[in-house]
């Protein structure tokens, strides 16, 4: 994955570049909005990581300019402003996701991977398959090894989101935001309990578990036999 980091804080930028490289991604870097905009115009990136407050050209303006030129590279906005209003403004300006500082790198990584994936053809697919687990988005039916699994509507959406990002790490906040559409911190481990319920329905009576917990990050659904 080719990532452009537009961030004026040198230390943050170099940390991000190093960490992204360790994960096998190519990370380029711009220290101000102007340079960032030029780089994003000239090269094809998979994802942009844009700091909201930038010298020369504000982060939202950079994204706005790109969108005006119909350059649709997914953009993740990083900001110290974390209120609902700020998030709404960021997304309205053309950002695809919004992450508040300070953040965990695992959270950032999971989000940019999800953003890059969004452009893939699987996005619009009507059937998700992971191993012998099949989810049909049209009939709202889930089967594992041909056996039907009964899910509550919310469990279905949870599984749908996990399977859409099969093989990727999905964080608890991403689940809360995308499955429940809430952006606050629920304090208690509510998401974990929902996931463990789902797990008991799809994994309990089968030899190979598909839904895995990624320590310190979140969850992933994948067929580990391959």
């Amino acid at each position, binding site marked *: 994955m080719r990532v452009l980091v537009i961030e004026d804080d040198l230390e943050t930028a170099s940390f991000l570049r190093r960490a992204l490289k360790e994960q096998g991604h190519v990370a380029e870097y711009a220290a101000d909005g102007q340079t960032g905009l030029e780089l994003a115009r000239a090269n094809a990136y998979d994802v942009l990581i844009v700091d909201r407050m930038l010298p020369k050209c504000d982060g939202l303006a950079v994204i706005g300019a790109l969108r005006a030129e119909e350059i649709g590279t997914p953009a993740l906005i990083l900001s110290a402003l*974390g*209120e*609902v*209003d700020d998030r*709404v403004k960021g997304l309205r300006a053309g950002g695809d996701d919004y992450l*508040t500082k*300070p953040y*965990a790198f695992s959270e950032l990584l999971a989000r940019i991977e999800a953003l890059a994936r969004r452009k893939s053809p699987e996005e619009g697919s009507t059937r998700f398959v992971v191993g012998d687990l099949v989810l049909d988005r049209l009939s709202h039916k889930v089967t594992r090894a041909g056996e039907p699994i009964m899910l509550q509507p*919310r469990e279905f959406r949870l599984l749908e989101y996990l399977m859409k990002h099969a093989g990727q790490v999905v964080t608890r906040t991403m689940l809360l935001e995308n499955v*429940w*559409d*809430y*952006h*606050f*911190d*629920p*304090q*208690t*481990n*509510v998401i974990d*309990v*929902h996931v*463990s*319920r789902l797990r008991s329905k799809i994994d309990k009576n089968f030899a190979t578990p598909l839904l895995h917990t990624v320590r*310190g990050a979140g969850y992933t659904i994948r067929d580990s036999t391959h």
Partner: protein
Amino acid sequence: MTALTKLFRTTTFRLSLTYLALFGAATVVAIFYIYWNTTVLLTRQLHDTIDAELKGLAEQYTNGGLTQLVRTIADRSQTPGSSLYYVADPDGRRVAGNLTSITQELSNSLGPVEFEYSRPAEGGIETRLAFANVFRLPGGYRLIVGRDIEDRRELARVIRSAMLWGLGMMALFGIGGGYLVSRNLLARIDAVAATTRTIMEGDLTGRLPVNGSGDELDRLSESLNLMLARIEQLMAGLREVSDNIAHDLKTPLNRLRNRVEAALHEPYGEPTYREALERTIEEADGLIKTFNALLSIARLEAGAGGDNKESLDVAAVVRDVAELYEPVAEERGITLRTKPVEPVFVRADRQLLGQAIANLVDNAIKYGAPQQRAQGGNGSELEVSVTTEARGRMAEIVVTDRGPGVPSSDRDRVLDRFVRLEASRSEPGSGLGLSLVAAVARLHGGTLRLEDNHPGLKVVLSLPAESQALLNGTAHQPSGAELRSA
């Protein structure tokens, strides 16, 4: 600035002076106008009378000669208040008339003339003013007919002195009154200024004097006092918050620092370091959460965050949140029940409302249980119920539990930042949850109250409901037809 110059500079005093000048000028103009008109009228009457008499006497002379004229004048002189007459021969000698002598000037003139004459009065002779017309009769005789106008002179004098006295009194009362009123007002303003200074010096307990008269200054003072009370309350809140922040953020920071320091001194290898680092991150995450919550509350209290209000069905949000927490509750042996209710619409920010309800449910799950647990019960009897009711014009979200509740004396206090009751210290938490709910309630024009659930705690979050008319227009429930066609 001396007390007197300060007084002269007051608005009241300046206004008094201005009005004084205006009234003075108006009075002078009015009196002068009346006087002048009267004089014109009187003069015309005087001229007419004298002219008529002259004409009559001239006819007498023409018809009956000097003898007839002298007789007529003698007759007329008998009536009290008669005109003044004087007839002189061509040599200037007096022939007849009630004027005994005339001045040289008068005897030489012709036509209308003003002159002074003497007449006997009590204790001597008095000089009076008269107006006359001098007429030359055929044969060289001169006829002088005049009227005493001393009364008019007197009238002018009286009016002039009345005017002067009047103006003098007006000035005296005006300036005196202005002075008294200004001094009174100035004293009150000075008292206000003195209080303001003490407040500026940092003593927020000072209040402006109110004398109970209910006048404009009193009303202003009352409003300002209310404002001061609010400011004092806010300042106290701010001070308390800073103290609390200092305590509640420094403690974990210190813990974090100690842990890192201890890890550095540990002689063991990587696993120990790893564990220490992981716990450090946990601690840092906790701090970040506390910071975020504090910032959110501060922003909400400053009135920010209300830009994303929309028409929302509270019942749906409650169901959403209940559904989110239901597995956690079940895991803890708590039954989370929501009463099915009709949609109730409010104008709210979905995220904030969701978070507020989530905080209430979270609290109920965490703190609504301990008693039964301690007794070793299975806890299955605990319940958290969430209901929405449109009571009148308010939508009420009620969260009840069967826990130990909150003593009535602590109910206001627990809404403050960082306040955690002793009984709850064993559970993780920042003491900011209810503060945030209260701030959300205020932002939406609603209230948060804590009540006794006999036993347990009943928390009521009430928000202004949207009117029925609006509700019908924006109802989000699909109609039967829509359901069928779907």
